[in-house]
């Protein structure tokens, strides 16, 4: 309808070539993407340049310190992050994928409780991560008395990434065409046999991509751990799930909070490590998607 009110465009069509306005619009659109790109580039270059002097093996061989920035390292942060991510993968991925299978393959969309579950998941995906920290503090650390341990951190961050896992797994499962399911059912397979032998194998690349992205979100998350006592200086690696811990992003936050300039260099170096891990994971995810994406 909007088009009808602008007969001028018909005249423009008649003129040869593209009018200037069209070009400007296109340039404006492209430049806003370019701004994001340039910004990202600047950020990466800046962090690399700042952190370069400290990018040596001492960085991951040594423990953090708030007295000697020249020799302080990030080992306890790296190990803490590995523990958290491992446990999160064990808890959040199976739960999320199973929930996605339920919602896509079994749930009757017209039932109110399924609608509530769906709306609840999209809601949870946008709850601020600091609120998950409050959940971890109030329920898991205090009420369940898990304390400020690796377990508490892992459960909290699992709940945080669960909606992301569910949403991406659902998309992957939905992309499998119904004819695959119908063919399997017609051959006499039960519903679960169909899901287990046809639907899930066909959607694994998509599920894997989403899972990697969800885990990389968990790696970069700092706010919930702030509430879980992981902020204090931890100079040892976690020994088990009931050990206290810190994670890499919080270690970085700690360094940034120190006023001495050397700590900012240290923070930048730790950021380079963190970004390298995340970029690697993102590239694997994007590669997986491009490599195995099937057009049915």
């Amino acid at each position, binding site marked *: 309808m909007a088009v009808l009110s602008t007969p001028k465009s018909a005249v423009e069509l008649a003129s040869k070539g593209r009018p200037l306005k069209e070009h400007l619009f296109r340039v404006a659109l492209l430049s806003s993407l370019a701004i994001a790109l340039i910004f990202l580039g600047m950020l990466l270059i800046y962090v690399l340049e700042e952190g370069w002097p400290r990018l040596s093996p001492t960085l991951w061989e040594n423990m953090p310190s708030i007295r000697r920035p020249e020799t302080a390292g990030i080992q306890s942060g790296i190990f803490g992050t590995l523990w958290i991510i491992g446990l999160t993968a064990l808890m959040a991925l199976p739960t999320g994928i199973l929930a996605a299978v339920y919602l896509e393959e079994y749930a009757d969309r017209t039932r109110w409780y399924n609608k509530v579950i769906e709306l609840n998941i999209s809601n949870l995906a946008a709850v601020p991560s600091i609120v998950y920290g409050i959940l971890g503090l109030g*329920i898991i650390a205090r009420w369940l008395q898990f304390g400020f341990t690796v377990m508490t951190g892992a459960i909290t961050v699992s709940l945080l990434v669960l909606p992301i896992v569910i949403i991406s797994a659902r998309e992957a499962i939905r992309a499998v065409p119904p004819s695959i399911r119908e063919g399997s059912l017609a051959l006499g397979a039960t519903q679960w046999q169909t899901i287990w032998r046809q639907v899930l194998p066909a959607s694994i690349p998509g599920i894997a991509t989403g899972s990697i992205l969800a885990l990389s979100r968990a790696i970069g998350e700092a706010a919930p751990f*702030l509430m879980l006592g992981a902020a204090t200086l931890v100079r040892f690696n976690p020994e088990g799930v009931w050990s206290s811990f810190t994670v890499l992003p919080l270690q970085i936050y700690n360094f940034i909070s120190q006023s001495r300039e050397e700590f900012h260099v240290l923070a930048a170096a730790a950021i380079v490590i963190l970004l390298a891990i995340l970029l690697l994971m993102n590239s694997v995810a994007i590669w997986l998607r491009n490599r195995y994406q099937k057009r049915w």
Partner: protein
Amino acid sequence: MSAPVRAAAPGSPKSLARSRPRYGEQLIKAILLISALVSIATTVGIIVALVEPTIEFFSEVSFGEFFGSTTWGPLFSPPAFGVWPIIVATLEITLIAILVAVPLGLAAAIFLSEYATPRVRKIFKPVLEVLAGVPTVVFGFFALTFVTPVLKDWFPFLGLEAKNALSAGLLVGVMIIPIVASLSEDAMAAVPNGLREGSYALGASKMLTSVRVVVPAAFSGIVAAVILAISRAAGETMIVAIAGGFKSVFTLNPADEMATMAAFIAQAGSGDASVGSIPYKTIFAVGSLLFIMTFFMNYVSARLVQKYREVYE
């Protein structure tokens, strides 16, 4: 599914219905349902975690003092509980972020959805995804040690403090660009091609088609994206804690240091407020407020997305 079964057995004496119940299948369905219910348990857990300390908080601090005064300092002595300074700081930083993210994100979405060839999309989409994957501590670090000094150099008349709302807001804005861009692009991609073709047939140019046909048709989805982005910005913690600071003064000047609600929670939560003390309960009271605000926005956003899905899919 039941239709072919009936059609295949006209007049057959033997029923094709399941002859015995499949308990294994039932069990599996139950396990799957339980997994889906974990998300409900999470919401319940959040609410339970928030409600009790919040009620206790309001039994000691009056509603009138919380919402009626403008001095905030629960961690000081004597403590003050007027919540407005941190609400205003949250709104201000969110506003700055939205002013950055909406134009850039929307333009990026229009470009990707209407102008870009598949090859160009394949280059730019991962860039947005990488931007979305950058941890917020990194943005905070960049705001504090790069953006603020640069702004101080270029615009000395602003009188920026070392920590200020402006840099924090700008970086929160950059953080939410991918949210605005990718969700708006989804909404635009859902607009049927017939609308575009109709517009071209009437002689409209590509720009007119994008701005006057595609964007209005995808409007509810775009609004949903923006609301979600606002909610993200309001709840962002690390950037504002690092670059925006913890000082809560009732001010509107973006050059000043100011603590948002999330920053306050982070500050009080990472300190050692003893369990049951008033500062400890304040964390939960502010948390409730933040949760209610974002929950409301997320709900509106989710409903809007449902609406455009119903219209076009």
